[in-house]
């Protein structure tokens, strides 16, 4: 029964608004702390890679950004599904708030990937399977945001984009598999894999910590965006007046 009260609280916009307001700074602070430690660990402490020298340090931003971009899409789809099944307005607001953040992480992953590619292979872009899949993920985000923007009625936009997110998340593994298949067909002489170099613990812990930092950062930004979403959606509701005074 305790789980149900918790569930119901998450369904109440004013409660979630208060939660977001209280917790966002904590997540943000924790994120900053972790990021600083991880950056120090990755850029200064970790030894240079045997093959890639210092260029490999790009992985400390690139890999966590890529993981986050996928994690956020999944979060968005789960929130959207919850909104569809249990008809929770807050869940739809969460999904809407996730999308731009996820898209930016995807851009970050692509950008750092391009910056990594230049010292590695002398080219700003390679059709590496992971980068290509990242690009398709960006298109999925654009489609989601485009659909939301294209439908006037908020409730209808919520439901339609929720369906799209669910269909998209089911497709993501299929897309990834197909892109890897495609890449394996056209193996060129140089193995164009943007794989992480083999890592021992000294190199690994900053990576994991950076992932945690990004996740905390995502939580902080999500909570801030969520507050804005709730304010916009509930602007005619009475609890808004109390909150703003």
């Amino acid at each position, binding site marked *: 029964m305790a789980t149900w009260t918790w569930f119901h609280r998450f369904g109440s916009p004013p409660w979630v608004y208060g939660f977001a307001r209280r917790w966002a700074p904590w997540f943000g602070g924790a994120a900053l702390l972790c990021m600083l430690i991880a950056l120090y660990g990755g850029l200064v402490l970790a030894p240079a890679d045997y093959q890639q020298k210092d260029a490999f340090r790009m992985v400390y931003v690139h890999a966590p950004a890529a993981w986050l971009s996928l994690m956020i899409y999944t979060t968005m789809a789960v929130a959207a599904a919850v909104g569809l099944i249990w008809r929770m307005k807050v869940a739809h607001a969460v999904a809407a708030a996730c999308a731009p953040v996820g898209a930016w992480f995807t851009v970050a992953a692509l950008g750092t990937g391009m910056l990594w590619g230049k010292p590695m292979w002398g080219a700003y872009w390679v059709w590496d399977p992971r980068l290509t899949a990242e690009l398709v993920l960006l298109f999925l985000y654009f489609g989601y945001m485009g659909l939301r923007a294209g439908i*006037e*009625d*908020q*409730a209808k936009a919520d439901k339609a984009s929720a369906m799209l997110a669910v269909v998209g998340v089911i497709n993501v593994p299929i897309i990834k598999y197909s892109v890897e298949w495609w890449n394996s067909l056209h193996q060129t002489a140089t193995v164009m894999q943007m794989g992480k170099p083999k890592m021992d613990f000294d190199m690994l812990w900053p990576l994991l910590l950076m992932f945690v930092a990004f996740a905390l950062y995502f939580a902080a930004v999500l909570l801030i965006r969520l507050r804005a979403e709730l304010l916009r959606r509930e602007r*005619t509701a009475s609890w808004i007046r109390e909150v703003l005074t």
Partner: protein
Amino acid sequence: MLNVTGLHLWRGDRHVLRGVSFEARAGQCVLLTGRNGAGKTTLLRAVAGLLDPEEGQVAWRGAPARKTRDVFHSELAYLGHEPPLKGDLTGRENLRFATGIRRAVAAADIDAALTRTGAKEFSDRAVRTLSAGQKRRVALAGVLLTGAPLWLLDEPTTNLDADGQQLVATLIEEQLARSGIVVAAIHHALTLKSGETVNLELGAA
């Protein structure tokens, strides 16, 4: 048989339906009145299940209509503002499809319905060539053919001449006599010579 309780519906920011409730028993006709934008169409669509209300419930024969959606729809005939007809098909072909997907129907039945609504003479022309009033007559034949106990009609007399308006009144009376229920949104008064009428005005602040 039809129970609508506490229906609240927002379209964007507008609170269109504010706790609408009504009940309709067999043989009753509910007439929805109200000025433009009062929510008559919205209410009909919400009862039909095309719109999802934020609060409230529609119950048919005691069960929530959302849970028994397919059964509810098979007992429901909905006629909106625009007659749902494909312009490139003839009236007859349209009805053969629209009725056929619901129940087995014989050509003779279609003929009878078309004759009843005065649409037989132009039933073999492409619907795109018909006037608005003629299309409506074909659509009304479609409603008859469903054999559904519940009719939801959105301004059924639009584009019809005086004869046509009388036809609609008669068709509703016959439906009520069959123990059917009619919920109709109307603009001007519709007087029925028989059957029980309930008036529901929407948008009264």
